[in-house]
């Protein structure tokens, strides 16, 4: 075993100048700009849902989309704040109010529309397109988040992964609502909320491992 003074000497010998991280909020804005870029690219390649203009006039839909977007933004900010060693872990709660509103709108829509959902009315053909959209948004956003927060591997990987997963899931859900037409709220619930739960759970379970994979060795 190396003695502590020797360790200090070897660390000093390796003390190359480092570039300081920008403030967490600025970095979160960077990630959100990247997310906006991806959504713009999707809007150019994929058409937005045909009834978007109509839906945007419905307060329910607007509330839902605003809440999911807010959840994404707040969760992203929380992730970057949590990734620094000295910020309070209470930042994990930052996206909770928006998340609550988002989940409530999904639940409310579900409650209202559940009755109208009949067997055979589920648009099963859409699922592949839906899944492709999900991967196209989710994967680059997750990778960007993982690389930008790789230093969190040594600090609070699980906490950061949970809020990062929520940020990615919320942005992806926003994309789904803009690009994908689902009349049945049950499907929205399954896709949006299911994905959110899945990503957050994956973040919680494998966050430590994912970050140590992305971390500099």
């Amino acid at each position, binding site marked *: 075993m*190396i003695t502590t003074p020797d360790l*200090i000497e070897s*660390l000093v010998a390796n003390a190359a100048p480092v570039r300081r991280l920008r403030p967490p909020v600025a970095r979160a804005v960077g990630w959100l700009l990247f997310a906006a870029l991806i959504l713009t690219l999707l809007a150019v390649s994929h058409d937005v849902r045909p009834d978007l203009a109509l839906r945007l006039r419905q307060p329910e839909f607007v509330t839902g989309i605003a809440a999911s977007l807010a959840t994404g933004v707040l969760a992203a900010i929380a992730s970057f704040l949590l990734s620094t060693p000295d910020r309070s872990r209470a930042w994990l709660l930052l996206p909770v109010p928006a998340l609550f509103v988002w989940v409530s709108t999904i639940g409310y829509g579900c409650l209202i529309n559940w009755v109208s959902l009949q067997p055979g009315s589920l648009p099963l053909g859409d699922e592949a397109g839906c899944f492709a959209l999900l991967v196209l948004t989710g994967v680059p956003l997750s990778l960007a988040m993982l690389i930008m927060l790789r230093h969190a591997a040594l600090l609070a990987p699980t906490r950061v992964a949970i809020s990062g997963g929520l940020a990615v899931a919320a942005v992806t859900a926003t994309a789904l609502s803009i690009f994908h037409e689902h009349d049945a709220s049950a499907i929205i619930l399954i896709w949006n909320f299911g994905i959110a739960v899945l990503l957050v759970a994956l973040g919680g379970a494998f966050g430590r491992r994912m970050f140590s994979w992305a971390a500099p060795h």
Partner: protein
Amino acid sequence: MYMARAQAGDRDAYRRLLEDVTPYLRSIAARHFRNSGDIEDTVQEVLLTVHAVRHTYDPARPFGPWLVAIANRRVVDALRRQGRSRAREVALEAGHETFAAPQANLAEAASDGRVLRDAVEQLPSGQRDAIRMLKLQEMSLKEAAAVSGMTVAALKVAAHRALKTLRKVLGTQNRKA
């Protein structure tokens, strides 16, 4: 502050910083570990982490909480590791050591045997030979007589006296113990 200069690559400032914080880190670790090896391991883990994430320090914010947060992370990790290894492993102590040969596991019997051997060693030579041949080597009276040149009667007497002496010696030892 030293950390800001260390981030810029100032090695002297970095060395001073690390040397200054080491006793403090040791006192944090000592709150959770008793074993000095564990304390030193934790201190070194903290120093390595500080080195790896030194770019996350923002000079506009105080250094203390940044350092303490990192130290607490490593302490928690070390405690978890310790908990895991305690749950699955048992530290090998002298009491747990065991060997294939049965006599190695009978420490008490071995020490009793030594006392007996010492007692036999202290007997007068005639009695000692009689005891060795008749009891330890399990010779018959005739064989022992042939080997030692003593008569059978003399051997019997010697063996009897030897047992009596041993009984007395070991008896007094036991009482002393």
